[in-house]
């Protein structure tokens, strides 16, 4: 039987999604359901003095006003954002200060809108700058990486370099904005809590609720069959799950809490703004002798999150002198967290822009420059790569994009009012795996059911895992049902860090092989079926100490309107080396999706901090533009064949994030090629084009 892994299989839940049958966290009807609406602070720092619930409670249908004075006490966890309504402190504007519960959404919302809250305000500090007096070096950067690194002597290297580039690049705060706002429907059956929750991994939400409410593992079930995107913002439990569970307990009714689009800008995370100084030194041929990448970024006072922005520089280019650093300031702002390719997405913008500047300074083609700086081993640390095919991606992309025909001179191609240019950038993302568990059961009728707490947030994971299981069990896909998104199936990795398929695929393979061995031993499937369980914790702990990364090359063509500064992107091409691709159809979609978000990052996305009120002021889709259909033209993504037996039994590296890495730099470099003006600050707005 020929395998299905690698084939372009249509996503299994496609039918339920195109017909509207797929139910997301806010789509479950429950008898007696009541609705909670969050009230947010209107100051950025201080204390809640009082909440006058009297009038609200007189409104018909209003069931409760939950505040810090009457909320259930929660057990401590390591994430202050989850300790909601536990004290009177206000750490940022938009923080939850009350939950109003009503019989209907309209009643809850009207009562919440009119709820009088008195504050004792203190002066707030919300603006990031590279000279902020409270900058500090965090203990580590996300997820658990060194804050600073140093190899060799960067200052000496730069002093002796024939060519140097020294510029500061910046990226703004960006908000994840999955189309499905975070939502939880919660109910208690005796002492057992069930939540329908929108997340990237039910395991983590389960663990958080168990700890917060002081429950046994078996007393909490998190169900998340369909999830409307996350992009990092649903990587762990968010406070709406806690509020829904708390209110359901307090009122003895099922409660639903759904965030509004506006509330997403305060309550679920975002990408920190970054200020990045990049210094490159090279010989006249562009061979690096020094690379220094210094990053300044923000966190909140509730939870320390340090984005690993400079890690991109630790793996990309060979240089004897390499330093990277991260400095953080804790501001009175909402907590920044993961957003698609944390670290690599903003870091690649700075470094890949700087490499383009170095290519220009040396008179070397930007692809050739990268080839000349290809390392043999990891530049920081010296460990071997399990596989590294950046050069193959650059060459394949150059051929497809017809790069050889490019005239390198900037600002020389014009079509009416449009200046035209092309640009390239490299990308990378770690290829990691995390322990997971799964079970596979053989049914009497010859079919199989796989159960694991994976999440399909639009990645196609459900379909890809079905392909993997079908191949392992040597049956057609329609003989395998993969059930995911239910914490009762046991702990598993989240859909995050591009680790989903590598982690889940591994454990599914292991469970299937175990089941086949069991069937062989039993001489067939017994009448009551057979179940095999697997856990990959030991396998992952036993992995060799290698650098495992995917790589890619991003190509962009732009047109820049000389009168308005408008930028159009007629063409994007991404070529990736990401190990084995399980589903050619959904993988292409995911890579294109990442590139689309990269285009959006390059040209549109920017959360603006209002210094006076201490809040991101453009908190809706009118003020915070994400790429719309008309902003996108031709985008194609492809990959090279890459076999790597040092990853996991499937040989997959993960593709959820690499699509966004490098896209913004490729576009910025194309804008330089078109206009002759370097764009070092995102997004590349029309005013920045017209007044560089």
């Amino acid at each position: 039987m020929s395998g299905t892994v690698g084939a372009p299989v249509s996503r299994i839940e496609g039918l339920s999604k195109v017909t509207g049958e797929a139910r997301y966290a806010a789509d479950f009807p429950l008898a007696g359901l009541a609705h909670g609406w969050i009230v947010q602070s209107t100051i950025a720092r201080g204390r809640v003095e009082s909440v006058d619930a009297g009038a609200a409670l007189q409104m018909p249908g209003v069931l409760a006003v939950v505040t810090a004075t009457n909320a259930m006490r929660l057990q401590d966890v390591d994430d202050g954002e989850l300790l909601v309504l536990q004290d009177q402190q206000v750490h940022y504007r938009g923080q939850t200060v009350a939950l109003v519960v009503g019989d209907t959404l309209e009643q809850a919302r009207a009562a919440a809108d009119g709820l009088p809250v008195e504050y004792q305000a203190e002066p707030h500090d919300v603006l990031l700058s590279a000279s902020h007096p409270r900058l500090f070096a965090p203990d580590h950067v996300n997820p658990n990486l060194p804050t600073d690194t140093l190899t060799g002597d960067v200052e000496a290297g730069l002093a002796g370099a024939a060519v140097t580039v020294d510029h500061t690049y910046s990226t703004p705060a960006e908000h994840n904005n999955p189309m499905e706002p975070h939502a939880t429907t919660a109910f208690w059956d005796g002492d057992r809590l069930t939540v329908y929750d929108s997340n990237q991994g039910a395991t983590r939400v389960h663990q958080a609720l168990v700890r917060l409410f002081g429950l046994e593992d078996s007393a909490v079930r998190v169900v998340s069959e369909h999830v409307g995107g996350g992009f990092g913002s649903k990587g762990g439990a968010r406070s709406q799950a806690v509020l829904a569970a708390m209110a359901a307990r307090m009122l003895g009714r099922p409660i639903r809490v759904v965030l509004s689009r506006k509330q997403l800008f305060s309550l679920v995370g975002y990408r920190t703004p970054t200020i990045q100084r990049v210094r490159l030194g090279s010989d006249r041929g562009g061979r690096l002798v020094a690379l220094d990448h210094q990053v300044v970024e923000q966190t909140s006072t509730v939870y320390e999150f340090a984005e690993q922005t400079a890690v991109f520089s630790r793996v990309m280019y060979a240089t004897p002198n390499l330093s990277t650093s991260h400095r953080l300031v804790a501001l009175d702002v909402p907590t920044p967290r993961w957003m698609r390719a944390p670290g690599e997405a903003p870091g690649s913008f700075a470094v890949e822009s700087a490499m383009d500047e170095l290519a220009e300074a040396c008179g070397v083609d930007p692809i050739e420059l990268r080839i000349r700086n290809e390392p043999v081993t990891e530049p920081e640390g010296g460990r071997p790569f399990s596989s590294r095919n950046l050069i193959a991606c650059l060459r394949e992309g150059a051929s497809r994009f017809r790069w050889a025909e490019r005239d390198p001179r900037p600002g020389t191609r014009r079509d009416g009012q449009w200046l035209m240019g092309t640009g390239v950038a490299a990308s990378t993302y770690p290829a990691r795996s995390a322990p997971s568990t799964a079970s596979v059961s053989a049914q009497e009728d010859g079919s199989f059911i796989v159960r694991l707490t994976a999440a399909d947030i639009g990645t196609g994971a459900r379909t890809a895992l079905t392909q993997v299981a079908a191949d392992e069990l040597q049956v057609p896909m329609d003989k395998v049902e993969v059930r995911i998104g239910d914490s009762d199936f046991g702990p598993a990795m989240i859909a995050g860090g591009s680790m989903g398929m590598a982690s889940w695929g591994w454990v599914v393979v292991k469970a299937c092989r175990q089941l086949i061995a069991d069937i062989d031993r039993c001489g067939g499937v017994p009448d009551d079926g057979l179940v095999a369980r697997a856990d990959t914790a030991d396998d992952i702990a036993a992995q060799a100490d290698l650098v495992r990364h995917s790589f890619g090359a991003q190509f962009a063509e732009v047109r820049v309107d000389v009168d308005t500064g408008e930028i159009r992107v007629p063409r994007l091409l991404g070529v990736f080396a990401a190990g084995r691709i399980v589903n050619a159809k959904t993988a292409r979609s995911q890579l294109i999706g990442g590139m689309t978000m990269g285009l959006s990052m390059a040209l549109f996305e920017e959360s603006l901090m209002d210094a006076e009120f201490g809040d991101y002021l453009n908190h809706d889709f009118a003020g915070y533009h994400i790429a719309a259909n008309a902003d996108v033209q031709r985008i194609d993504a492809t990959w090279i064949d890459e076999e790597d037996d040092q990853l996991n039994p499937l040989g997959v590296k993960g593709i959820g994030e690499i699509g966004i890495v490098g896209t913004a730099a490729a576009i910025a470099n194309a804008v330089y090629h078109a206009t002759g003006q370097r764009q070092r600050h995102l997004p590349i707005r029309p005013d920045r084009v017209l007044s560089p």
Partner: protein
Amino acid sequence: MPERVATLSPIRLSVNGREYQLELDHRTTLLDALRENLDLTGSKKGCDHGQCGACTVMLDGRRANACLIFAVAAQTHDITTIEGVGAAGNLHPLQQAFIDHDGLQCGYCTPGQICSAVAMLAEVEAGWPSAVTPDVAAGPVDLDESETRERMSGNLCRCGAYVNIVAAIQDVVG
């Protein structure tokens, strides 16, 4: 303080060819009426603001954001939601094309995208120009990729499925 009284009204809605009699709060939007009262949860709430298009339904065949219409104001219209566009075994060609071309990832914007596309094709059929139509008086519209992108830009997709959404619609147009 004046006494506040919840005001409920009897409301008749015609959805997907069925008549419904409801007693609803005046403040209930059509979107919330569909989702919370009729259990038609295919229509999604992405922004509740008329900015994302996830709640797109059709009123008398014309696309509209259900979050911007009070249910009381929708009583005179024939409402079509994604559940009325086509179901398993009887899919609309656009629904099948979205599956075939992978015009979706998380699927949350998908019902709105498809409702929007169904009505958009009718607009093209009726000869309505768009902002990118070269000559608004030239008669029949050629629904090329540029026209498709323009006309589908009221429906945001954060997963970035636009390329495949356009391919799906182009496939149906032929």
